[in-house]
């Protein structure tokens, strides 16, 4: 049985005016467990806290109820006071008789009666309180960034600049990501490579950053502060230490017919290749599917020409195991496949291209060396049609329900660049809405319309029909003029929806990070914790969390980095003791609790139990206290009642219910 002291605060007249505090003290004395009750002017004052300390000693109190203002105000104060008096801080409960009582009830009888009931409920709860102790876990001061695009690079740089080790795992042979494929960037029109390449170099040169390119995360275990990650370094067949990056191997390679990933398949590359000239690291890889040596055993030309002797056909995949305190997901995006959109004739005509392909066409290092030309016949187009929202804001399941966010702006950019360089080319943009909420965005778009004479048509395109003369007949509607439009175009550019990188689901599963129905990673709180995953220690950077442009990506990358730094700066993590735990004799091991846990805090172990003489091995839920945040979702999902929440246990809440309904 507890020995409970009840302390009723007057809060000046805030409480005492509408609650007869003396009466509350008197009535509460006869509650089971209560051995002491008193009232005081201001319990939260130093003198008030001192009274608690004295009473704890005098009456050998084991539990405390403070009837005062909201626990959101002073629960911590009184817990600390209790701790100073030698009690466990979690032996304190607050009855909120100010905000929930005295301030809203005018009648003193009514107020007093309710205050007594609230006090009684708190006493009933304390009767079942047990001392709770926060746990501690260590922090490995090293971070992992998955994905080496601009998001990952920026996050890594910021973490490294703060003085912490950070590794980037990038699955392609080079860091740089989609941004490296872009020609110019809006709204300033500076060259993408010019601003990205220095960052790539910085990352590669940073003494705190380690790059794992052509590598993938294979396995993740552990939890916040203490993750263990297996990284698969795929065999490059080129010794990175020996390679000088001279490029001779690529030049001599006889197999040059593989579509270049970097050029979105619009050009070819050799079997041994670096994706693009500025690739970092500047070390090629051999594509074994294309390599003649690997396919037939003959050739070996690259090995012969390599003066450094870096080519090694015997190289094997390597698994590296590293420890990390925090993991940042920066897996980025890709454009959707257009198989569901036959009406745009993407698969029928080479002159229907996606906007990202147009980036490559416009780029000096691209397949057309920067000349705007039709990919079918190399002729210069005179009439270009842009179609917006291809697969974005889609109400059926052909596309995506969300707005891809960047398309309006890059289309304005494309239109403007074309009109600038080729003033004789007509540009028409079919759109649903033009969305330009960003700094200097709307001005940018208006320049396209007003200064460059881009023809914006509000309306959707129903069909693009390739004509025998090589032109493309675009059937659209103009909603503002309420008329059908038929336009013969030389090129059609599709603002294709973006979607999270297809690997994200696999990665999210490894990390027990949640993802939404569109495969975007879920943030811990949509507004207040946008760069954190609900799973502690997992952070989000860039488009893996939702569509965003470069400036937004970079700022989010920085935000994720500071969250990581905040975590790595700690030597130890104190865990909230109000966590769930499973009674191993009651647990069925059914996994229902794990299915509702937003933090991936529940795992299962085969444990040897002794259930009143029955010894057997059972599958039992184990809660990781470092991950559990104490929401209690699992406690209700659990049918047997095995899962309970410390500090808000089933029996404690029921005791409060009983006390109120008495």
């Amino acid at each position, binding site marked *: 049985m507890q020995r409970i002291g009840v302390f009723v605060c007057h809060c000046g007249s805030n409480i005492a005016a509408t609650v007869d505090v003396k009466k509350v003290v008197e009535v509460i004395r006869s509650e089971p467990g209560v051995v002491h009750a008193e009232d005081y002017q201001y319990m939260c004052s130093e003198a008030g806290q001192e009274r608690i300390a004295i009473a704890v000693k005098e009456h050998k109190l084991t539990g405390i109820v403070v009837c005062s203002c*909201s*626990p*959101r*105000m002073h629960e911590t104060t009184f817990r600390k006071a209790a701790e100073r008096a030698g009690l466990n801080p979690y032996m304190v409960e607050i009855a*909120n008789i*100010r*905000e*929930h*009582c005295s*301030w*809203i*009830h*005018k*009648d003193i009888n*009514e*107020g007093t*009666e*309710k205050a007594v*009931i*609230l006090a009684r*409920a708190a006493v009933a709860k304390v009767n079942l309180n047990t001392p709770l102790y926060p746990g501690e876990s260590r922090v490995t001061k090293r971070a992992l960034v998955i994905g080496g695009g601009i998001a990952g690079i920026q996050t890594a740089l910021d973490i490294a600049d703060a003085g912490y080790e950070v590794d980037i795992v990038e699955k392609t042979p080079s860091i740089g990501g989609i941004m490296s494929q872009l020609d110019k960037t809006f709204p300033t029109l500076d060259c993408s490579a010019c601003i990205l390449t220095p960052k790539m170099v910085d990352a590669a040169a940073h003494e705190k950053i380690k790059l794992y390119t052509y590598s993938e995360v294979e396995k993740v275990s552990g939890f916040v502060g203490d993750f263990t990650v297996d990284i698969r370094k795929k065999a490059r067949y080129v010794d990175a230490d020996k390679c000088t990056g001279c490029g001779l191997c690529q030049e001599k390679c006889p197999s040059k017919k593989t579509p270049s990933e970097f050029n979105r398949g619009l050009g070819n590359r050799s079997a041994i290749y670096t994706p693009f000239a500025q690739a970092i690291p500047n070390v090629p890889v051999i594509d074994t599917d294309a390599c003649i040596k690997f396919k037939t055993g003959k050739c070996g030309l690259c090995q012969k020409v390599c003066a450094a002797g870096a080519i090694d056909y015997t190289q094997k995949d390597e698994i590296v195991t590293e420890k990390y305190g925090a993991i940042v997901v920066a897996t980025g995006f890709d454009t959707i496949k257009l198989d569901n959109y036959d009406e745009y004739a993407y698969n029928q005509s080479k002159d229907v291209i996606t906007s990202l392909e147009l980036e490559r066409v416009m780029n000096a290092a691209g397949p057309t060396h920067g000349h705007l030309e039709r990919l079918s016949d190399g002729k210069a187009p005179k009439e270009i049609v842009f179609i917006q929202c291809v697969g974005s804001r889609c109400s059926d399941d052909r596309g995506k329900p969300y707005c891809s966010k960047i398309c309006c702006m890059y289309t304005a950019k494309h239109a403007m660049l074309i009109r600038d360089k080729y003033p004789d080319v007509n540009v028409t943009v079919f759109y649903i809405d033009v969305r330009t909420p960003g700094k200097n965005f709307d001005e940018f778009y208006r320049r396209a319309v007003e200064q460059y004479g881009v023809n914006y048509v509000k309306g959707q395109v129903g069909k693009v029909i390739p004509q025998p003369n090589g032109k493309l007949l675009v059937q659209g509607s103009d909603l503002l003029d309420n008329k059908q439009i038929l336009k013969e175009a030389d090129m059609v550019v599709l603002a294709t929806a973006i979607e999270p990188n297809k690997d994200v689901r696999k990665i999210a599963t490894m990390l027990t990070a*949640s993802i939404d129905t569109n495969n975007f990673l*879920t*943030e*811990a*709180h*949509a*507004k207040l914790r946008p760069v954190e995953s*609900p799973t502690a220690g997992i952070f989000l950077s860039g488009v893996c969390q939702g569509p965003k442009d470069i400036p937004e990506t970079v700022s989010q990358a920085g935000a994720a980095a500071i969250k990581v730094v905040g975590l790595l700066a700690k030597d130890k993590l104190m865990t909230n003791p*109000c966590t769930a735990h499973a009674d191993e004799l009651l647990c069925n091991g059914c996994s229902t609790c794990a299915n*509702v846990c*937003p933090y991936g805090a529940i795992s299962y172990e085969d444990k040897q139990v002794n259930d009143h003489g029955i010894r057997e091995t059972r599958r039992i839920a184990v809660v990781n206290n470092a991950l559990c*945040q*104490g*929401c*209690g*979702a699992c*406690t*209700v*999902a659990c049918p047997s009642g095995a899962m309970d*929440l410390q500090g*808000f246990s*089933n029996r404690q*809440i*029921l005791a*409060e*219910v*009983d006390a*109120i*309904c*008495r």
Partner: protein
Amino acid sequence: MSVNNEFKPKIVAFCCNWCSYAGADLAGSSRLAYPADVKIIRVPCSCRVNPMFILRAFEKGADGVIICGCHPGDCHYSTGNYYARRRMTLLFSMLDYIGVEKGRARVEWVSAAEGVKFADTMNSFVSKIKDLGENVRLGDIRCKN
């Protein structure tokens, strides 16, 4: 009906710590009155509310039970109230099915900024329970005396 005989319902309100409990605090600091019949139990999240708690309240003589949580999408734990919403929808549907009056139990989403909504919600709930009268269909007779 004389004032003395007026039906004083017993009402249990489960409020999530992050939104609704703070909303109730705001109602208090804004001095927005609602009947003293409402007694609040603080829970970390609406997903902590077990149907057993609700039935237990009715068993022991509660006339109404209300669960308040963060607005969908705003859960402190990101998904808790979504689970709570499904659980409570099913539970209330079952209560209706066995003949318990509609409206004896209710779920409302009240944010920490919605002191007015909290007070309004409690006023409307208490008045609904007063209309329904004493809970006779779901109580344990032993607790009536």
